[in-house]
């Protein structure tokens, strides 16, 4: 009677012992890899001394600690019960910025290609108007809670900054999400818009409201000029040529000192005015006319609503265009270019309109950027900006307007929040500077988010043509275009 129970009691420790050796082996292998990664680059730090000679400083405790942590973590994961392992993988993927297989697996299990449930549909329907309302009230809520001085940072660094990227994301979405043309040089049009306003206002004294459409037109023109030679290119060739054009425009801005003042940039760009009333503390300023005490917050709030209006204009135009023949042609082009051509769609014109319209909104955003900063320099228009905007579009779900807005809030807002982490100094000592890890974590977050949701945050689409009933389709069914 007691024999089976005895064997099972005996079996348990034997199994554990049999588990320990392979677990130790795996953990040792992982630790060895991590040690190899750390070996020169973390264990030693090369610093130039006063004579400009490099000297090495050792940092073995740090790299050995990292190795030890990895060893213990992998060992525990191997020893854990199978159903706990997934949690180890999730923690690992967040800590190490990868290990992503499990995370991707979990995300895929959760979704599938089936149509989303009714609850998610209802959420999707009411989320957008609710979010819009919250955004419209955002500066007033800030003002009410924090007062004019305290809310300046929130409205400017978070509100205006995020909305600029929402607008850029929506603009690029026309090119990448709808027409399926991979553009890695979108920042060029942003730069054209910014410099158009900067030069037109400082040279000819034109006002913002005159310059805004001009900047859009100029950017659209550049969109056509740059789009025309690359029409025959597809996929990654298109990507590299657009990247090259982005870099060319930046280098011209750097080197054509007579026009652009080079690295020094253009300063003293006129600030925005409230339809002719300047935001200053003069007697004829905004505050004096409306009998308000003078604070700089009014200008910021005006800028906030200005960029909100511009972004909503972009959104509105995009949504309307999707239903027009040109919008349908863009999406058809993304799905199948050969079929498009055989059905008589002029692919040249279709691609050029996508480039031109995307560029135009980029130009608007650039012109807003110039009036907000009062200063433009080529430093603001590097490749990393293009990459960030593209990441926002892809993370948003390629073609989903709401997804792009959410992605912009996440990609811009979260790194901005990293600046608030000064309290960490209390834990890690005075020399710890959280802002220096900002871009490091930004890069890691891009990788993790892609592994977590390769199809973007909002992976469903509303079709513009449907039979009887309009229902969302999964993003997995949407092609990403060849060129």
């Amino acid at each position, binding site marked *: 009677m007691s024999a089976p129970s005895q064997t099972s009691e005996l079996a348990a420790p034997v199994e554990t012992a049999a588990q320990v050796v392979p677990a130790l082996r795996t953990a040792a292998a992982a630790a060895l*890899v991590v040690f*190899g*990664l750390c070996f*020169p*680059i*973390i264990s*030693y*730090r*090369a*610093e*130039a001394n006063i004579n400009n*000679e*490099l000297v*090495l400083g050792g940092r073995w405790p740090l790299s050995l600690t990292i190795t030890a942590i990895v060893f213990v973590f992998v060992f525990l994961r191997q020893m854990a019960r199978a159903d706990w392992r997934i949690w180890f993988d999730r923690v690992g993927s967040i800590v190490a*910025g*990868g*290990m*992503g297989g499990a995370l*991707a697996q979990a995300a895929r299990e959760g979704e599938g290609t089936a149509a989303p449930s009714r609850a998610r549909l209802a959420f999707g329907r009411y989320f957008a108007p609710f979010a819009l309302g919250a955004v419209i009230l955002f500066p007033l809520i800030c003002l009410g809670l924090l007062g004019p001085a305290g809310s300046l940072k929130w409205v400017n660094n978070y509100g205006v900054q995020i909305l600029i990227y929402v607008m850029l994301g929506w603009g690029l979405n026309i090119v*990448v999400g709808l027409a399926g043309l*991979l553009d890695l040089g979108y920042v060029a049009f942003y730069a054209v818009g910014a410099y158009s306003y900067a030069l037109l206002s400082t040279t000819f004294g034109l006002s913002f409201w005159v310059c805004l459409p001009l900047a859009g037109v100029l950017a659209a023109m550049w969109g056509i000029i740059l789009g025309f*030679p*690359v029409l*025959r*290119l*597809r*996929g*990654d*060739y298109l*990507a*590299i*040529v657009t*990247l*090259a*054009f982005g*870099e*060319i425009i930046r*280098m*011209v801005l750097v*080197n054509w000192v007579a026009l652009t003042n080079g690295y020094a940039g253009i300063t003293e760009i006129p600030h925005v005015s409230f339809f002719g009333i300047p935001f200053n503390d003069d007697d004829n300023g905004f505050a004096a006319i409306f009998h308000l005490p003078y604070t700089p917050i009014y200008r910021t709030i005006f800028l906030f609503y200005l960029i909100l209006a511009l972004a909503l204009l972009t959104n509105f135009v995009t949504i309307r265009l999707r239903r027009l023949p040109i919008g349908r042609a863009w999406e058809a082009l993304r799905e199948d270019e*050969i079929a498009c051509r055989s059905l008589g769609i002029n692919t040249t014109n279709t691609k050029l309109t996508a480039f031109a319209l995307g560029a135009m909104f980029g130009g608007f955003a650039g012109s807003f950027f110039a009036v907000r900063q009062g200063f433009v320099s080529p430093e603001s228009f590097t*490749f990393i900006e293009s*990459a960030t905007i*593209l*990441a926002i579009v*892809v*993370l948003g779900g390629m073609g989903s307007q709401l997804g792009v807005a959410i992605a912009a809030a996440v990609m811009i807002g979260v790194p901005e929040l990293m600046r608030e982490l000064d309290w960490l100094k209390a834990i890690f000592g005075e020399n710890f500077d959280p802002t*220096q*890890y900002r*871009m*490091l974590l*930004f*890069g890691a977050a*891009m*990788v993790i988010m*892609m*592994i977590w949701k*390769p*199809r973007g945050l909002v992976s469903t689409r509303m079709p513009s043509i449907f039979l009887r009933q309009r229902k969302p389709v999964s993003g997995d069914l949407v092609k*990403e275009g060849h060129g």
Partner: protein
Amino acid sequence: MDNFLQQLINGLTLGSIYGLIAIGYTMVYGIIGMVNFAHGDLFMLSAFIALITFMILTQILHLGSLPVAFVVVLIAGMALTGLWNWTIERLAYRPLRGSFRLAPLISAIGMSVFLSNFVQVVQGPRNKPAPQLPNHVFNLTGGAYDVTLSVRQILIVVVTAILLAAFWYVVRYTSLGRAQRACEQDQKMAALLGIDVDATISITFVIGAALAAVAGVMFVIYYGVVNFADGFVPGVKAFTAAVLGGIGSLPGAVLGGLLIGLIEVFWSSYFSTDYKDVAAFMILAITLIFLPSGILGRPEVEKV
């Protein structure tokens, strides 16, 4: 004429470095169709690894012989950079294989941002001057305008040529090379025929990284200074070189690298240094307009 010869020498040296990096792009693109944007930053990381390994050898181990140090740095750099790229592929790209095309691209851009900032955090933002090494300079003419050829330049071109020959042999005549070419053509069929596709792709990343590490060592030797932001521009130019030569084609990558190096050097010499990068990119755009699949690339035929 003297100036022309001098610029030819400089251009070939620079082009060798670009060619070595370009191979990493073209191989990864050939096998999984992905633009590995982090490759330029991997090159920068390898330059740091090489520099620090050299410092360890000379300052801590007090190794006297420079040639031995050079060989050790080269081998250690190739191995460690290979390990880095193996890990990166494992963590950031493998989970996205078979996903839609832009996801690995964004992941690679994220990895590029991560790598350059990682080096900035752990090694500091300032320029790292390499230790001064003896460099014999040969004077080829002795006329009014001296044409010089330095030992470093010879070293760079010779090492590049030897490694390319070895690498060419591996891809052309070994079973590993055959497995790579099979995966390039059809991964599913290759797997059915008993090729370990995952391992082959990993090895491709390791080889690409090892060649980038060679370029990193050469970069430190040639320029004598390295910075955490030095990966982007050579990376973009090497990618340009890969596309110019026809992406997916190995001889094309080397040819493209040499062309970009020569264009850059001649433009700086005869026109202006300000617009040398503009010249490289313009030539890329013009080439692609007339030869949309690069110089040696096969045209992409779409089957319906």
